[in-house]
């Protein structure tokens, strides 16, 4: 193998992406029926949101405690605009994403001029407000029991069924990861890392810190909204259960568990936190205890998150064994 090819493969933007594509392509061989597809799709949708959220948490050093609200706004835009107003699903999805983008901008612009974790507080409030609205505006949203959403029509074809949606979500995830990796490697990404490292230093170097923080927040909110719209059309159903504060916390947990500032870490975190509760249902009443214990132990023993910690461990092993590089 030529050096150039090796280098290309080792680059997360090519090798990592190929790896992820391979996993998505091979995974169906291990999925015996639609229920497993359903879990995989759920993991994929969460992963999309987490990759976006990771840009904000891992690179801009800001925390959003209202991301489930953005996912919910996307989902409910798709649901309400198509059902109540007869919009085309793609138009509804775009309108939802635009609306969320504008909302995120309006919230973030004044707040991100301040230094510190004010964004966390603002998004916390915003997320709770969104949750209250979808719960109480039962006339449009169906209230606590949610509402049904029509299937996504694409060039006159109805997109229905787990097998179809697996590939849609898989493609969307690949695209999001590609987008995220490119963004990180671009001048914007370098500016973001500078902001994360030291804001005063970044400012001295001429980086408009507020601008970049707002930009990445809007991007991550729009990604969340699009994932929400996809999820709503896939499930054919939206309910406030996935819009609330706890879902926002869960999303942050996924990013932290997988490893902050690691795009693949966000994907792994999302996959694990989606799959684990399903694996633990056999424990019945002890399910939540086991789930909490696993999370606690992970955070205690791998404080930097699964993916970065695994790299460190693997590297140390290789170094101490004196193994030649593969």
């Amino acid at each position: 193998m030529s050096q150039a090819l090796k280098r290309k493969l080792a680059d997360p933007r090519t090798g990592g992406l190929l790896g992820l594509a391979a996993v998505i392509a091979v995974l169906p061989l291990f999925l015996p029926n639609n229920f497993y597809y359903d879990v995989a799709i759920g993991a994929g949708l969460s992963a999309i949101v987490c990759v976006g959220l990771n840009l904000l948490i891992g690179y801009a050093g800001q925390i959003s405690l209202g991301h489930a609200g953005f996912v919910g706004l996307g989902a409910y835009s798709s649901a309400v605009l198509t059902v109540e107003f007869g919009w085309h699903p793609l138009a509804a999805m775009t309108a939802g994403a635009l609306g969320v983008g504008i909302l995120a901008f309006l919230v973030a612009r004044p707040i991100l001029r301040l230094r510190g974790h004010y964004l966390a507080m603002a998004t916390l409030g915003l997320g709770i407000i969104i949750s209250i609205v979808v719960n109480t505006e039962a006339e449009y949203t169906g209230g606590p029991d949610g509402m049904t959403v029509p299937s996504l029509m694409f060039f006159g074809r109805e997109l229905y069924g787990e097998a179809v949606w697996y590939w849609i979500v898989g493609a969307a995830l690949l695209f999001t990861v590609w987008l995220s990796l490119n963004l990180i490697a671009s001048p914007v990404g370098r500016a973001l890392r500078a902001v994360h490292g030291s804001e005063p230093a970044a400012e001295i170097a001429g980086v408009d810190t507020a601008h970049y923080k707002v930009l990445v927040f809007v991007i991550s909110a729009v990604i969340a909204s699009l994932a929400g719209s996809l999820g709503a059309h896939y499930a054919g159903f939206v309910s406030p259960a996935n819009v609330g504060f706890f879902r926002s916390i869960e999303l942050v947990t996924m990013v932290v568990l997988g490893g902050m500032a690691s795009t693949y870490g966000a994907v792994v975190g999302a996959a694990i936190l989606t799959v684990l509760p399903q694996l633990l249902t056999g424990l019945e009443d002890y399910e939540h205890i086991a789930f909490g214990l696993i999370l606690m132990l992970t955070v205690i023993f791998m404080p930097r998150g699964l993916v970065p910690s695994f790299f460190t461990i693997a590297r140390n092993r290789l170094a101490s064994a004196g193994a030649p590089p593969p």
Partner: protein
Amino acid sequence: MTRHFIKRTLAILLTAAAALAFGAPGAPASETIRIGTFLSVTGPASFLGDPELKTLRMYIESINKDGGVLGRKLELVHYDVQHLADKAKTAIKRLIEDDKVDVIIGPSTTGTTMATIPLVERAGIPMISLAGAVVIINPVKKWVFKTPHTDRMACAKIFGDMKKRGFTRIGMISGTGGFGKSMRGQCKGLAADFGISVLADETYGPKDSDMTPQLTKIKNTKGLQAVLNPGFGQGPAIVTKNFRQLGMGMSLYQSHGVASKKYIELAGAAAEGVRLPAAALLVADQLADNDPQKVVVVGYKKAFEKRWGSAVSTFGGHAYDGLQLAISAIARAGSTDKEKVRAEIEKTSGYIGTGGIVHMSPDDHLGLSLSAFRMLEIKNGEWTLVD
């Protein structure tokens, strides 16, 4: 470069491992008859799901001891879905696709039932819901049945009782969950037929913990004689407490959504004098000896209370009826063929259950009449039969 290589390999391995851990499918359906259920065992609707699950477990054990059905043992597959529609959707997919159950009993609430009906209809598997609202069976869905009386019947029973007592001006405070929402609509639609006008109409959310503001508005509405509270779970107990704290000075009616001893325990002394329509099960001992339901309800009550050491609720009774309907249909069909079982459930006629005497038909997937409902009043912390 090595670092990147490891990074890449590990990313792949990790994701693959996650996939593999999941790749082992559930055991294939063997000789057992698999009964799937997904109930609200925890959360604000645990009132319903807890006795339902206990009932199913208890009777499946005893049926298996007696040799099972068609010579095959019964096997219960259960997932707790709280009151959450999206959890219910995951559970029903798992029951249908992965566990490959033969028949489904549940879920506990109207919201979770309505969310799963499209999937059940697409998959073609008989489901006997244990939820209250009339929307579940009206319009009739081919594969969906239910055992509890409908909210519409509850409205009719309550309004009949109000009329007898001379109440014509009432206020309503409803839960916004599926059952409360549905019953609110049904009652408002029916009120005029009974010459009753609804002058105040308030709502509360499933997790709300204080309904004083809504009740204050109702209290300030002039000339009200009674208040009706459609809802289930903790909400109505809180409404009852707030109702007494505010000294409302009118009669309070609850739905059959509170027909459990837990409601009286939670509301305490505030529950005194509250009226509600409910199945005969709650007043098993007070039934006349020639009542055809007496043997069934006394038998179930004794068995449940002996096994679990807690008082019966009508919800456990709904699960009992659901299980009996399912296994007798399987026995008559002579197989677990889904279409045959569905047809047999639909042909159920004269089954005497805890909820009443069931006569199903292709147009009626409930099969109960209004006479199956009794009007109860809470006196000294006990259910008493008034009608």
